[in-house]
C-alpha cells in the first residue's frame, strides 16, 4: 500500500469540516490505486472525469462517512466503483469494447493501452462482468482481502469468492493462450 495511514483519521475529520486541503491530501494518497482500479474496471470507457466525479461525490458525502462502518479507503473505493458503474450505464448506447455480450464486442484493439500492455489480459478482463472484474482487480490486482472487497462491492464475502473462482481461470487462459483461442463458458469469442 502506498498509504501512510497515520494522519488519515485526522485528515478525514478535518475534511468532514470542509477542509478541502485535507481532502486533497487524502485523495492524493489513494489516487494512484483508485486510478488503477477504475481504469482496469472501465477499460476504454475510462476518462479522468470519472475520478473527478467520484472525488467530488465523496467530498459532498463526507459527512456520511462513519469510521465504525469501515475504513475510509474502502468507503472511497466504493464511491469510485459506483461512479464507474454509472459511467458504464451512461455509455451503454455507445460502441463498446468491453461487454458481457457477443453483440457488443468490437475489436479489442480500439483500446490504446491494450497494445502497450497485454492484449490478451485486457481482452479477458473485458469479457468478465463488472463484478467479476472488480473482484479480480481488488483482490489479485490491489491486494484487498475478500472481506474488504465485499464491503467495497456491497456483496457477500462468498459471492466475492465465487466471482473470483469463475474469473481467474479465464484470465489465466488469456495469459497463456493466443487471443484467438480464448473462449469460455458463457463468454464471447473474439470476432
Amino acid at each position, binding site marked *: 500500500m502506498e498509504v501512510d495511514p497515520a494522519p488519515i483519521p485526522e485528515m478525514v475529520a478535518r475534511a468532514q469540516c470542509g477542509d478541502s486541503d485535507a481532502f486533497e491530501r487524502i485523495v492524493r494518497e489513494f489516487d494512484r490505486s483508485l486510478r488503477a482500479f477504475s481504469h482496469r474496471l472501465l477499460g476504454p470507457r475510462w476518462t479522468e472525469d470519472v475520478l473527478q466525479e467520484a472525488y467530488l461525490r465523496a467530498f459532498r458525502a463526507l459527512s456520511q462517512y462513519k469510521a465504525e462502518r469501515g475504513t475510509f479507503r474502502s468507503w472511497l473505493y466504493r464511491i469510485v466503483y459506483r461512479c464507474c458503474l454509472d459511467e458504464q450505464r451512461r455509455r451503454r448506447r455507445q460502441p463498446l469494447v468491453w461487454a458481457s455480450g457477443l453483440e457488443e464486442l468490437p475489436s479489442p484493439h480500439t483500446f490504446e493501452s491494450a497494445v502497450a500492455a497485454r492484449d490478451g*489480459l485486457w481482452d479477458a478482463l473485458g469479457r468478465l462482468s463488472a463484478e467479476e472484474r472488480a473482484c479480480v482487480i481488488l483482490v489479485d490486482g490491489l491486494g484487498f482481502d475478500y472481506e474488504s472487497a465485499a464491503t467495497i462491492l456491497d456483496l457477500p464475502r462468498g459471492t466475492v469468492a465465487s466471482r473470483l473462482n469463475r474469473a481467474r481461470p479465464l484470465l489465466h487462459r488469456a495469459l497463456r493462450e493466443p487471443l484467438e483461442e480464448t473462449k469460455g463458458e458463457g463468454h464471447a469469442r473474439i470476432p
Partner: protein
Amino acid sequence: MHEYRDKELAEALDALPVPPTSDDFYTRMRARTTGSPRQRLMPGRRLLATAALVGVALLVGGAAGAEFAAPSRGATSTPVPAFTPATGWNIVETNNRQSCSSCPDKLDLAWAANVPFAPQDTQADWPTETLKNLPPGGIVIVVVGPWTYTGSDAIPGLQLPVQVENLHFEAANWYEGQPAPNVSSYFTSAHINPQEIVNVFVWVGSDNPTPALKAAADQELARLTMPS
C-alpha cells in the same frame, strides 16, 4: 472458504499501465471542492453561539487553576474539550477556531497520554510520533471537535464519562490509521449538542488491552470535560 491472492494474476495486473494524473487534475478538483460540505450556522445563530461560548469561557476561565504543568497550546478561553490535569498524565490542548482566525475550519483538539509526547508532536496537529513509538502499556487519547455534523446517520449523544468499553474497538492486527504494529484503537463519534459532534480516539500499546489498561484509560477519560 480458502482465501488467497493469485500471484500470477497479481503480476499480470501490476504490469498494466496506470493512466498518469493530468497537470490540472487537482486544480480542477480544488475548484469544485472549494467551500465546506457542512452546514454553517446562520450569522445570527453564530453570533449567539459565540456570545454563549464567551460567557461560559469567562466562567470556566475564572475557575481554572492547573496544578500540572501541561504543554498547553493556543488560547483556551472558549470551552473546548479538555482534560483536567492529573499526575502521570500529559495533556495538550488547542483552540484553533479561536486562535487561528485565518483557518476557521481547523479543529480543536485535546490530547492526553500517560507517556511523554514526542517534542515534534507538541507543535504539530496530531501526536503522530508519540503513537508510532507508543510502548506497551502506553495510552494516548485524542478528542477532536466539536464540529458540525450534517450526515443522515444516527449518531448517539455523548455519555460522560466516556468509557472504552462503549467505543468501537480495533485490535492491533490491521486497521486504517494504525500507527504501529502493537497499538490497538478505540473510537467513537458522538453528539454533544444537536448540531455538533466530537470524535474520541483512544490508542493503547497492546494488541489485547488488559482490564487494568482499559481502567487506566477510563480514569483519564473521566477527567475529560466537554463544552455543553
